[in-house]
């Protein structure tokens, strides 16, 4: 799907040609594809309409960051907006000032309520609580039995009064038991129902009225289509929901329903269910879901990370320095640290489309330890040494090796490689100055996509452990350069 949306967007922009700013036509063309992607992800029709309108307004006239292609720029805006709608911050469970805290789970049949009750209990017990699960679904055959079994399996206490009792009474009694015996929270499993089933909705209202839950969470299936909006609206109208648990995200559903529900009822998504096992409950992260809804893998997070971590101005200065051959170890260190801020190196490379596969094919291993070693070596130098590596004589090398916990040979190798790179860069710079639109310019301009990578790419130290040359890694570096040429 990533391929689909990004490729389509790229095609759109190829037709239009590159421009400094996103024009109205660019944006409209691009948003047609985005709209389709959202609808295919089951985001509600009207939510998509409003969303597209909002993005359009934001995107038109926006300057295309020099690090991104226009297609990436549009996706970045779309992604940011998605995250905004999904809720940019994680909202934790609320706890009652007077225990026990009562958490009621509601939703359609088959959304996964009973399973989530057990998961939530398990999760909260791990956090040191003493949860009591309450089986208040007396309608589905064996629903009470299911919760009892789950309780037994995971050693979680379950309160039930069989299937003959009034569920509202059952719940009231359960709360009393919890209060007397110090259980907290009380997690209630309710019967699955259609939001238009009047008697059942009334039962829920009576239940909520009777025990005043701190949290009423709607359990919604990530595979739900356009109907999600109607369901959430009605449950919210009747019960004033406080949050959402999105289930079955371990499948390949894109989960656009979550966006619809967020947009329409505004309650936060508190947890996501990622499997049938009792530990498959995770806190919700808006950016991950946004990425999933767009169906774009992790490339997006890379764009995001690049945007966040790389100071544009600094990137430009670095590039100039590189070309002028005045790039020193100080600059290199800064570059290295910026890249590191973005996450583990291998993970970063994996995120580049095709790169993960390439890395596996070539069996390239780029370990973060090597990265650390290089950093340690440079950090053990004085500022003077970093600016002017030529002054580093044997005794300085010994000091640096000791300080960084490496060997003199490793320090020497790093310095040699750095010098080689500096020379190469200077040569490239001269060439590039002569033909600024030529292929070499473009090679360096790979930084357009990921400004941090030229240094990484060009520096021989990365990908090879100075003291332990790895031929495969050399090969891999070579490959990645080729790859960049192709990507232009």
């Amino acid at each position: 799907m990533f391929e689909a949306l990004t490729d389509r967007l790229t095609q759109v922009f190829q037709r239009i040609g590159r421009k400094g700013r996103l024009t109205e036509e660019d944006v409209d063309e691009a948003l047609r594809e985005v709209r389709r992607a959202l609808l295919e992800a089951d985001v509600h029709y009207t939510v998509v309409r409003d969303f597209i309108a909002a993005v359009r307004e934001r995107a038109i006239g926006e300057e295309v960051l020099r690090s991104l292609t226009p297609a990436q720029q549009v996706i970045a805006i779309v992604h940011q907006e998605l995250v905004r709608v999904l809720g940019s911050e994680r909202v934790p469970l609320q706890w009652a000032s007077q225990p026990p805290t009562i958490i009621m789970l509601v939703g359609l049949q088959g959304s996964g309520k009973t399973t989530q009750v057990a998961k939530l209990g398990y999760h909260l017990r791990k956090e040191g609580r003493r949860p009591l699960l309450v089986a208040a679904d007396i309608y589905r055959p064996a629903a009470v039995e299911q919760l009892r079994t789950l309780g037994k399996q995971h050693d979680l206490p379950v309160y039930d009064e069989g299937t003959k009792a009034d569920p509202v009474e059952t719940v009231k009694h359960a709360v009393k038991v919890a209060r007397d015996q110090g259980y907290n929270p009380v997690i209630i499993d309710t019967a699955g129902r259609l939001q238009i089933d009047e008697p059942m909705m009334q039962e829920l209202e009576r239940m909520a009225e009777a025990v005043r839950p701190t949290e009423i969470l709607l359990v919604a299936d990530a595979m739900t289509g356009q109907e999600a909006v109607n369901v959430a609206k009605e449950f919210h109208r009747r019960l004033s929901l406080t949050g959402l648990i999105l289930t079955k995200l371990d499948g390949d559903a894109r989960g656009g329903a979550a966006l619809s529900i967020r947009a329409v009822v505004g309650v936060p998504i508190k947890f996501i269910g990622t499997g049938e096992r009792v530990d498959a409950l995770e806190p919700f992260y808006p950016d991950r879901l946004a990425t999933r809804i767009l169906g774009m893998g992790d490339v997006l997070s890379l764009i995001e990370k690049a945007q966040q971590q790389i100071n544009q101005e600094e990137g430009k200065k670095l590039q100039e320095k590189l070309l002028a051959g005045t790039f020193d170890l100080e600059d290199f260190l800064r570059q290295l640290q910026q890249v590191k801020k973005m996450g583990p190196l291998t993970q970063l490379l994996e995120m580049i489309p095709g790169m993960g596969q390439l890395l596996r094919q070539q069996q390239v291993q780029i370990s973060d330890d090597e990265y650390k070693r290089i950093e340690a070596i440079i950090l053990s130098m004085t500022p003077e040494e970093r600016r002017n590596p030529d002054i580093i004589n044997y005794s300085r090398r010994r000091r640096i090796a000791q300080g960084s916990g490496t060997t003199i040979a490793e320090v020497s190798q790093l310095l040699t490689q750095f010098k080689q790179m500096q020379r190469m860069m200077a040569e490239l710079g001269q060439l590039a100055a002569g033909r600024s639109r030529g292929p070499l310019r473009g090679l360096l301009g790979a930084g357009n996509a990921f400004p941090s990578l030229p240094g990484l790419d060009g520096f021989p130290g990365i990908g090879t452990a100075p003291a332990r040359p790895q031929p495969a890694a050399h090969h891999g570096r070579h490959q990645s350069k080729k790859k960049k040429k192709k990507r232009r």
Partner: protein
Amino acid sequence: MIFSRFFRRRTPPSPQLESGLKRSRQGIFRQIVQLFERSQIDRELFDDLEALLIQADLGVATTEALLERLQERVRRGEVRDPVEAREALREEMVALLEAAMRNRRVKIYQRGVPFVSLVVGVNGTGKTTTIAKLARYHLDQGRTVLLVAADTFRAAAIDQLKAWGERLGVPVIAHAPGADPGAVVFDGMQAAHNRGIDVLLIDTAGRLHTKSNLMAELAKIRRVIQRHVPDAPHEVLLVIDATTGQNGLNQARVFTEAAGVTDIALTKLDGTAKGGIAFAIARELGIPIAYVGTGEKPTDFAEFDPEAYVDALFFGDEED
């Protein structure tokens, strides 16, 4: 109502489908009326139809395909006003479903050879309830039925099926929770033979189609069945619930690869969801819908009728 004048029902829809779908269409009905009360076919009409179909979960591609055909008929001059457009759209929708219906295998029930029906689907679509309904349906047709509890995974799934068996007076073959589903099915096949059962309904655990090991388990169950009756299962029913969005298409695709789905059972049509994903499945995979579920009672069930479905869902009369 204005509709009755233009839509004569060709076949009277089943009462279950009617009452179940009544709620589904109430919201959408008014939209449709307003839609076609326009004086001319214009861009806006198509935009609104698109909104309508997408909100019914037909998906972008199927919606576009239907509207393109409609547009083509407008271009050819066959369709000149909104009333004709409505009729044309209705025809196209029915035709789409009927094309898939032609792939249906005729269901032959023989004495002495159990008709084996394997019921599969993702979690929570209503497989067990559908089994109960199917049992009721076959009992009403005078066939003997045996249920097999091959969902040994979900806590209390076996109890749920047993509870249904008791209510319906139908025997249930079950093992302990956590048992090998293949072994349960094996016993079920044997029992069906020994007891001369007409219809064997196998309940399987809900599984997401992305779990390849669980999908492989379905293939194994198929092999166990075939060891007893080579041309079985006679029916592999994928249960999809009407609230399912576009992921339903992936479900249908993968379940078909792993378990050879022959038909769809579309459940939970008693809500406001329209089950439009069934159009997408019919169009892209050619899998027909066999049954619809319209409630929690065993009688809330009907054989699928494309005309009745389309009429009741999108073009029904408000009064009834």
